């Protein structure tokens, strides 16, 4: 009987000692928690996409609570998150212009075609490594949907061989921008008026051969623009969104119909 008692006692004593030491340690070595940061992190969407430029939501929350970061960097959360965090920080909420991603390519299966049959891994990144993809245009959308696979909000779909962003669903986290091996996805403010939906830098005559919806660098848009917002660089039209006033004349004049109204 005493044997059992001693055994029980010893285990109890060891257990209690360990418990006491641990609870004492948790008090002595307590790390002060930034309560504000915890609160803010709960309000952030928790997508951990890094669109704000910080290492995940916790990093942004910590920077916000220290006053090192600006409000409104979270494009996923948008206005609602800014409004809910502003009272915690005791500052005025800022106006957030919602953003959305778009694909700078209009080359679907009807406009352009393939140069070779590809039977490898069904991924844009893999196809790109093989002579820059199997499309005639080496700049355009490959169409295996690496972007659609990475999108957490189901905003991208492959329609007729071309990635298309649903701007209502897009939260502008930028995951697709990072994953696209062609680098043709871009995130812009929804207030942008017109965008060039082509990325081809080949010469106009060649572009015309390989894709019906490619920028041929004809400069019609540049000439028609009264605000000096359009330039042709490397046979490709580029719009300076800061200068663009939204007159939409370039949209009307573009012979390839690749300058399109945003949204």
């Amino acid at each position, binding site marked *: 009987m005493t*044997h059992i008692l*001693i*055994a029980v006692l*010893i*285990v109890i004593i*060891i*257990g209690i000692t*360990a*418990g006491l*030491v*641990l609870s004492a*340690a*948790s008090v002595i*070595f*307590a*790390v002060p928690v930034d309560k504000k940061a915890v609160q803010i992190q709960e309000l952030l969407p928790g997508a951990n996409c890094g669109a704000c430029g910080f290492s995940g939501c916790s990093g942004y929350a910590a920077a916000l609570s220290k006053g090192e970061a600006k409000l409104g960097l979270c494009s996923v959360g948008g206005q609602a998150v800014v409004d809910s965090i502003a009272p915690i920080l005791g500052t005025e909420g800022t106006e957030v212009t919602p953003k959305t991603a778009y694909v700078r390519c209009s080359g679907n299966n009807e406009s352009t075609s393939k140069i070779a049959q590809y039977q490898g891994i069904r991924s844009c990144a893999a196809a790109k490594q093989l002579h820059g993809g199997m499309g005639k245009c080496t700049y355009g959308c490959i169409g295996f949907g690496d972007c659609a696979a990475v999108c957490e909000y189901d905003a991208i779909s492959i329609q007729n061989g071309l990635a298309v962003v649903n701007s209502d669903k897009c939260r502008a986290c930028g995951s697709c921008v990072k994953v696209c091996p062609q680098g043709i996805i871009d995130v812009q403010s929804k207030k942008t008026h017109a965008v060039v939906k082509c990325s081809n830098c080949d010469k106009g005559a060649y572009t015309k051969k390989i894709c019906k919806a490619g920028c041929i660098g004809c400069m019609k848009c540049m000439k028609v623009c009264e605000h000096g917002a359009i330039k042709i660089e490397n046979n490709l039209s580029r719009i300076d969104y800061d200068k663009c006033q939204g007159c939409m004349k370039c949209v009307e004049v573009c012979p390839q119909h690749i300058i399109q109204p945003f949204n």
Partner: protein
Amino acid sequence: MSITQLVGIFLAAILTENYVLCKFFGICPFLGVSKKLDTALGMSGAVTFVMVLSTAATWPVYTYILVPNQLEYLQTLVFILIIAGLVQLVEIILKKYMPSLYNALGIYLPLITTNCAVLGVTMLVLDKGAENPEFGYIASLVNAFGAGIGFLVAMVMFAGVRERLEAADIPESLKGLPITLVSASLVACSFLGFNGIVDRLLS
């Protein structure tokens, strides 16, 4: 115990008595965390640390508390209690004073709490001590450290093997865990080649 003997114990723990590849302890983290080299290193570092620390704590408890009271049979229970408490304590202290190391070890620390390799080391050094009275506290600590380094060697080697497997053309039916287990057994077989090497090396 002489230095030569301690070196012998250390090398034996790494090569001939490798806890993962020869005694088959800690197979779970061995298969689970060996996918990438950096996580394998992090996990092994934490395991080595906890092995030495828990041996340092359980040896005196066993020798000076359990043995005099004829309670050797409580070994497993008491050791798990001590190891769990110790890992928690280490976690709390690391969080306070070395947040960078805490973040690096991260999830591995709690994972180790119930790792059988750690419990195995603390218990097997006691068996060795029972066979050979010379095998005291210092020798036990050296053995525990060697066991940890052996764990590291096994993990790093296997992480390398698995990185090769990624690129290999594996039959459909063997893909994933089956081929991992097969290659683990081959690595373990190769470790049998070290049998006796340490004794000859130091004699």
